[in-house]
């Protein structure tokens, strides 16, 4: 553990023309400075342009923020036009606090987008995998489940038992064998 490589914010790292600024650094004038505490790492590329990458080595991971990638969220409430969800996990790293997202009627699936009924696709309490399509309005992120691998991954039936997907539209309760309508994700 080479402790000489520890840098603190404001510390000069080198000339801006020799490196490409990676995360954790910033450029001012013609110098490159560090902006977080961590180990200085330089990644060498075969082509010209070495990237100076600073990563913060600590157990505490910074809470994830929704970006354009897949995330897991829980449906909170539904209206005929949209489903309101609470984003809990972004790309395998959990968020410390939930973010709010909306899945509009036209973003639930790719085909027959206007004939979608929200209450036949999601119910409150379902866990779904979705994708961010836009940073949305002031209130929430806009999400979409319009791909085969997106949709409900876990749901409980009216009786409270877990349900298994039997097709992309239907899930079956394990206790009562009753069928309920959901937009299911394709199991990997």
């Amino acid at each position: 553990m080479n402790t000489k490589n520890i840098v603190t914010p404001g510390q000069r790292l080198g000339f801006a023309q020799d490196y490409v600024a990676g995360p954790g650094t910033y450029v001012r004038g013609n110098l490159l400075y560090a902006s977080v505490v961590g180990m200085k790492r330089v990644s060498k590329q075969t082509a010209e342009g070495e990237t100076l990458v600073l990563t913060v080595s600590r157990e505490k991971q910074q809470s994830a923020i929704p970006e354009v990638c897949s995330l897991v969220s829980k449906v909170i409430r539904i209206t005929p036009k949209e489903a309101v969800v609470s984003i809990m996990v972004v790309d395998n790293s959990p968020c410390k606090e939930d973010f709010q997202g909306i899945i509009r009627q036209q973003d639930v699936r790719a085909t027959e987008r206007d004939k979608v009924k929200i209450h036949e696709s999601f119910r409150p309490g379902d866990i779904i995998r979705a994708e961010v399509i836009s940073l949305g309005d002031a209130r929430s992120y806009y999400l979409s489940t319009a791909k085969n691998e997106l949709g409900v991954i876990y749901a409980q039936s009216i009786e409270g038992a877990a349900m298994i997907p039997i097709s992309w539209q239907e899930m079956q309760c394990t206790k009562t064998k009753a069928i309920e309508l959901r937009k299911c994700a394709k199991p990997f």
Partner: protein
Amino acid sequence: MGNVTNENIINLNTAITFEAETFRRIQPEEYLRRYIQQHVRPDGRSFNHFRKTTVNLSCITTADGSSMVRIGNTTVICGIKAEVSEPNVNFPKEGYLVPNVDLSPICSPRFKPGPPSEQAQVLSENLNKLLKNSKVIDLETLCIEEGKAAWVLFADLVCVNYDGNVFDACVIALMSALMNVRLPEAVYEDGIVKATEEKTIILGLIRITYSASFAMFDGQHLLVDPNEMEESITKDGITVVVDETGKLCNIWKTGSSCSSEQLKTCISKARDRYADITSIIEIAKQAIKKIE
């Protein structure tokens, strides 16, 4: 929601697996249940294990008595300030002891800024009841002049890190700060109270009480000293307060039902915990003596 039985757990979408942290976020109850089935808790403790408790006395020099208590990560700082005021008309020979708990946004993301939350007010009220009913201090010792002047002890408890079981930490902090209070000698003359510069009077505690809190999971498993995650999942809990003779002072029971056997277990564990806390406070007292 009905009961989720064992067989449903196995029938879950096994095609989709999650990392532990993701699973913990999506299904916190299931996550806890799987640990409980192995007779262990997510932070590695057994059901009966209290987290490491440390006490620091006299940490705030501007207060007349102070202490800082850590149970695991939960940290509470108690500062007691003494002021003079007129006693209550109905109780002219008694002073006051006023506890107040402050759960501010600094201690956890779950608290938003604003007026004291319901939880903080409930904690303050429970501490108040505890002090009154168990007669921890003889309020007559706080009297300076009957009917005219008496000491008011404001006990302010600030939680700076919230990781479950704040009540136990508050009780220990309050008791140890009270043991630590130094008051000046006060004399009432011609309508004015004169106090000496030196603070020499030690408050005498009639009774010292400590508490032990438990969470109940699935109606059967008793988890001692719940941390924040366990507290938020299990809404059921029992808090038992005992004094130095092992007598029961207070019991609070919230949530679903429990058997009398479980209550008896809780009471005996609270008594054992009492002995542990007393020795921890002894260590803290020795530490300040060394400095003095």
